[in-house]
């Protein structure tokens, strides 16, 4: 029972963290241009 008190919140917290990360990436527009991201990696000039 003691372990659960620690582990369950940790598990939920990690899950929530993942969810927040996803929401952030969605809001930050990381899913707006899926094709562009694949091509941009070929551009070696990172001055832009």
């Amino acid at each position, binding site marked *: 029972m003691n372990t659960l008190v620690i582990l369950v919140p940790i598990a939920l917290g990690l899950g929530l963290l993942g969810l927040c990360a996803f929401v952030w990436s*969605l809001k930050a527009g990381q899913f707006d241009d899926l094709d562009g991201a694949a091509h941009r*990696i070929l*551009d070696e000039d990172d001055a832009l």
Partner: protein
Amino acid sequence: MACCATSTPDRLDHSASVDPVADVRSISFMVPSMHCAGCIRTLEKGLAAHSDVVRVRANLSLKQIDVVWTGDAADADEMARRIADLGFDAMPVEKQDDADAKMRRQGRHLMLCLAVAGFASANIMLLSVSVWSGAQAETAKLFALLSGVIAVPAIIFAGSPFFSSAIAALRKRQLNMDVPISLAVLLSLLMSLYEALIGGGETFFDAGVMLLFFLLIGRTLDQLMREKAAGGVRSLARLIPQRATRVAQDGSLSQINLDEVETGMVLRLSPGDRFPVNAKILAGSSAVDRSVVTGEADQMPISEGQVFEAGTLNLNGSLDVEAVSDAQSSFLAEVMDMMRAAETSKGRYRRIADRMASIYAPAVHLLALITLAVWMLATGDFKSSLTAAIAVLIITCPCALGLAVPVTHVVAANRLFREGILMRDGSALERLAEADTVFFDKTGTLTSDRLRLDAKPSLSIDHASVLASLAARSNHPAARAIADAYSHEPLCSLDDVQEVAGSGIEATWHARRIRLGRATWVRELASGSSGNDSAPTCFAIEGEASFGFRLSADLNPGAAAAVQRVTKLGRNTAILSGDHQANVRAVADRLGIACFYAGLMPRGKIAKIEEAAASDKVLMVGDGLNDAPSLAAAHVSMAPANATDVSRASADFIYTRPSLLAVPFAMRLARAANRVVRQNFGIAIVYNCIAVPMAMLGHVTPLVAAIAMSLSSIIVVSNSLRLAFFDRLANAPKRHLQPAQEGSASIFSPAEVSP
């Protein structure tokens, strides 16, 4: 459409937004030719090099570029010019497109819901597994409460798309699939909450959340597919010049807006202008291109008093015209009206899933009610009766409907995409599978715009050389075809070469006039003709006999094979064209199409489609603006990628490769997809036949519900994935071909074909 590139500043400023405080302006441009890392780099670096540009970002998925800049030095028009300087065509994107913005918002909301449902179902499942595997009573109670804490907000948030859709349906006094889904999810939530709080029996939290998760996957996929397809811009308005030059009675010129044009006004058209409204020629000499109206890229000579439709292109001389309509009643406005009317009629199509739902939803409700009633009568225990009824609702929830259909459509869309075919939405695929008659447009679809010389008349070496030199000086398609045919002849020098609008080209060679062009005009010069009298294009040297040339349009690659395959699939074919009878007949004969209609205007094409629609489902394949209304009116439609914007926007499928073989391929894939969807429904029915009796007898525990739901989902999804391996275009004829229905291929009459 060279003239479209000259955009009016007035229009651009309208779509650019200005932030008054910081004096920052931003605008988005559509850049269709952007396709690789190099393009992104060129565009972004090129634009960022200007000192007033604050931020520039290219989006390859949408083929758009967003530019933010400061100061008054540049306006939107200047930005378009800068992009053009970098070697790209840019079209400003209308900012205020509510439909697009709404679609994107919906897509984002669905994705958020999916993420929340995914998070909740994973965590609740973890807790549930430990309960199922025999947790102590204390722990089980704690976990049930914990599940409830996660499930309540998750279901309220992630279920919102279903709840709002169900409420909307109920308001209209209808039942859709979302009604039983919402009922099942909400009832199971309430029931489970009650159980968790009193610490009694089993909870259904996991089933409800997982159900939402599965269904949301289907919804999101569907939405993403539609968003991708909506990327193509729709703007008939682009063809209409937004301003017109008015000639006042005293001869002075003034610029007026399109909506100020009134019947009777005199307007001046420069070369390269399009007719802003329907107008009558008053004065001037020029030739016009009516391809917008007829779909045929043919230059026409003009004479005073002739009336031309709005959108007609004035080619090479200045014209004074009198407006015979205003902007609201011009030909282009009429085409837009026709399209709007046609699209609403298409909206009547009901998707297979919806049709199934209309039978399924009432059946599910009835079963759940019966279960409740029978259990009440048998046991008198309301709680266990309600549990059984909820179990029925959950177990029958249509994962096969909600997930399998979108997955099938997405897999099919990806398979089509690999063959260069873009699909608008899933219902298009269903409609394509039903199509049993294919109408082709001629020019641009079956044939290319390029002409080809049928046979070379025998000319002396001198004559051939003169002909080749003369033909090489003109850009007319006929002259180009002749120049191609005689390209190996040595060129000689010609004097005062001039093109005569609508007639042909003439020059002086060794002090003699030579002409190439319309037969009647050329023969004025010739002493007689050397056969081939009926040929429309002639060449003559002053005082000598004329030579006639017969030109015909090149068939598009794959046109013959495509027509053959469509026929083999048991579908009827016909040609709808705006061209002359003889030209259409020639193409029809070459392709073996028995049924063709020539000289059709947009309204005529729609009439033919509606006539055929009485007994058949029509697939229309066309590219021109004149095809746009018929593309919208047909049951389902396809257009090549080089079609006009409007046609692309109204077509259900766009094929990006030149070969017309895309048409039979898409038709076969659509039928295969339809089969898979039906199989999935079959699987769902079998699953229900086993699961529903169990649920009604009260044997469905949360564990059984979770396993059954996942299992049925996995089966239908893997069945759908088979489509990804649907055969390649190259070996298409080997399989899946069914013998043509007897008689249907040879003689086609819409009235006689059975539906």
